[in-house]
């Protein structure tokens, strides 16, 4: 197909390499924890807590794309919301280190997003944005595309009206909604799902953030528009130097979008590795089960049976042993008596939390 040329490129290995331990990463998350109370009331202490995110640690380089995958209820969206401060963490650190902006004003102060508030938060909000899953629910239907995309600019007090119009036109062109002028005063209901998600991307990128949390941005789209949105996000990442935390349940999509993938289970990151390494050589029993459950669009392909029992439960005050213990085909006595295994580096860059690996 000659005209169908929007091909998502292989994520560039150099971008992934920029997170090398010697260079300062864009984002360092350490021991991030979020507990949701259960059964409390105005005058009553909560009886227990859901451990939605429990001691999560990872780093993200400038321009890197990290996939956070897992089943629904594993806490992946909560991590995303904590990073953009839509939720307050219960514990842990989130440190951003932004490079100086193009004007040369060096703002290389680490930002602990867990502790920050007020005006400083807003100035840092310029660097961090989020793209939501549902392009039908994430936009005010009464506002025009111009209103929607220019809102981050006005919240940040950037430029006058002429400047904002120029920026909106520019970003509309970048996300492939052309002619841009024709979209300015339309409303979301006039656009298709794929076009709306392009507007959502434009809104997130119009202030040139350094970091974007993308929560399942393509899962509500049809196959043909999905590929277009995926390649658009990759092109813009390269062009604008944006780093993504790509939250998804779909390993096949993560394969095309991410340099590295972190697999979450029940509030814990259980495995983290470069994308192809993780897919070819999964170490954690949960990752193996997850991978073997993904259907493959090749009718001749025969998959292994996923060797896993039961369902993902809600982690309400879980025992301190390995979270995956009840469903694990490789569990031993050792797993039963010991606390949740720590993340260990088995091969360079490949971390896994399991005693039996």
């Amino acid at each position, binding site marked *: *197909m000659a*005209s169908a040329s929007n091909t998502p490129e292989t994520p560039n290995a150099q971008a992934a390499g920029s997170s090398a331990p010697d260079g300062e990463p864009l984002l360092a998350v350490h021991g991030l924890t979020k507990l949701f109370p259960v059964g409390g009331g105005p005058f009553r202490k909560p009886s227990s807590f859901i451990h939605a995110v429990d001691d999560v640690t990872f780093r993200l380089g400038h321009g890197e794309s990290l996939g956070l995958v897992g089943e629904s209820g594993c806490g992946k969206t909560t991590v995303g919301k904590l990073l953009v401060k839509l939720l307050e963490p219960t514990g842990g650190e989130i440190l951003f280190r932004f490079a100086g902006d193009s004007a040369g004003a060096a703002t290389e102060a680490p930002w602990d997003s867990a502790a920050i508030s007020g005006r400083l938060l807003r100035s840092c909000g310029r660097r961090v944005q989020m793209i939501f899953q549902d392009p039908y629910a994430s936009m005010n239907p009464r506002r025009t595309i111009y209103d929607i995309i220019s809102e981050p600019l006005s919240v940040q007090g950037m430029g006058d009206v002429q400047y904002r119009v120029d920026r909106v036109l520019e970003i509309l062109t970048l996300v492939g909604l052309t002619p841009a002028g024709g979209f300015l005063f339309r409303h979301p209901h006039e656009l*298709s799902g794929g076009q709306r998600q392009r507007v959502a991307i434009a809104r997130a990128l119009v202030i040139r953030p350094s970091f974007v949390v993308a929560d399942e941005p393509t899962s509500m789209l*049809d*196959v*043909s528009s999905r590929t*277009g949105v995926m390649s658009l996000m990759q092109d813009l990442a390269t062009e604008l130097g944006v780093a993504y935390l790509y939250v998804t349940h779909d390993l096949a999509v993560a394969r095309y979008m991410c340099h590295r993938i972190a697999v979450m289970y029940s509030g814990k990151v259980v495995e983290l590795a470069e994308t192809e390494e993780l*897919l070819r050589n999964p170490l954690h029993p949960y990752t193996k089960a997850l991978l073997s459950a993904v259907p493959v669009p*090749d009718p001749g392909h025969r998959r292994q049976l996923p060797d896993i029992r039961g*369902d993902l439960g809600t982690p309400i005050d879980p025992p301190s042993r390995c979270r995956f213990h009840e469903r694990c085909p490789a569990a031993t006595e050792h797993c039963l008596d010991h606390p949740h295994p720590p993340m260990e580096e088995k091969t360079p860059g490949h971390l896994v939390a399991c005693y039996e690996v």
Partner: protein
Amino acid sequence: MTDRSDSLLKVDGLSLSYQTRQGELQAVRDVSFELARGSALGLVGESGCGKTTVANCLMRLLPDNARISAGRVLLDGQDVLLLTEEEMRLRRWRRISMVFQAAMNVLDPVYRVGQQIIEAIETHGVESTDIGARERVARLFRMVGLDPQLMERYPHEFSGGMRQRAVIAMALSCDPDLMIADEPTTALDVIVQDRILRELKAIQQPLGMSIIYISHDIAVVAEVTDVVGVMYAGRLVEMGDTADVFRAPAHPYTAALVSSFPSVSGERRPLTSLPGEPPNLSDLPPGCPFHPRCAYATDVCRTEYPPRAASGSRWAACWHPLDATLVPQS
């Protein structure tokens, strides 16, 4: 009536339109296919291509503004479209059942899950006694991997995967000849999806049941069906054995769908995206409706709808099929 062989369902030239304020919307155009007893057929396509409308038409669950303008739907030689509402009511669940995409909307929140299935069984007189019906539900629950004790629970106590399995148990409750599954696993996680697809496959063969899978997910359809039909803008554009169609697509639209689908296994081949948007059904381009997005389009594609090019049971509606063994039919 006469040519029964092992054909269970025959859809012949089905056309359907919705009356809307903007005028008439042709949602399904001249769709024909045949389904053998005990086999699984997949219908794939993007949203708005008419695949769910076809399913609703087989179940006769169409909204008031739908009008069937042509065609027949023969179930065991009998035209479903000519039945009275009462005759159809007796056949729903008993002969044809359906698994809907949104399982939470199917189960009534104020009744126990088991009770709802028992009601379906008793209404259709499959079991005459309450104990018999109960045992049947327990058996169905075990079949779909649910603990029979969960019969006494209410829908809100079920997780999404459990609800979907309960709905599948309900669809199987009256031993239907044909089950239509409309995106049965789209809202579910992969591990649960995998389990349900395996269960459906394992159940289908001993019961000799036919299944129509409707999905936009070609990976799922590739795994569970024998025959697949690809729909675009209300028409079937390609049909054949699932393995043949996905391995060597003949219609450029099928080829584009297949190559835009990411896979976790095998080589990491580049994905291609389809240019443009799916067409507006009330204002279709002349000729082949896919021509504005097609890389192979020529003048004839812009003016005339293509005839079928076929080889055996495999066919594609295209002037320039990608598989040269397909011969245009007059």
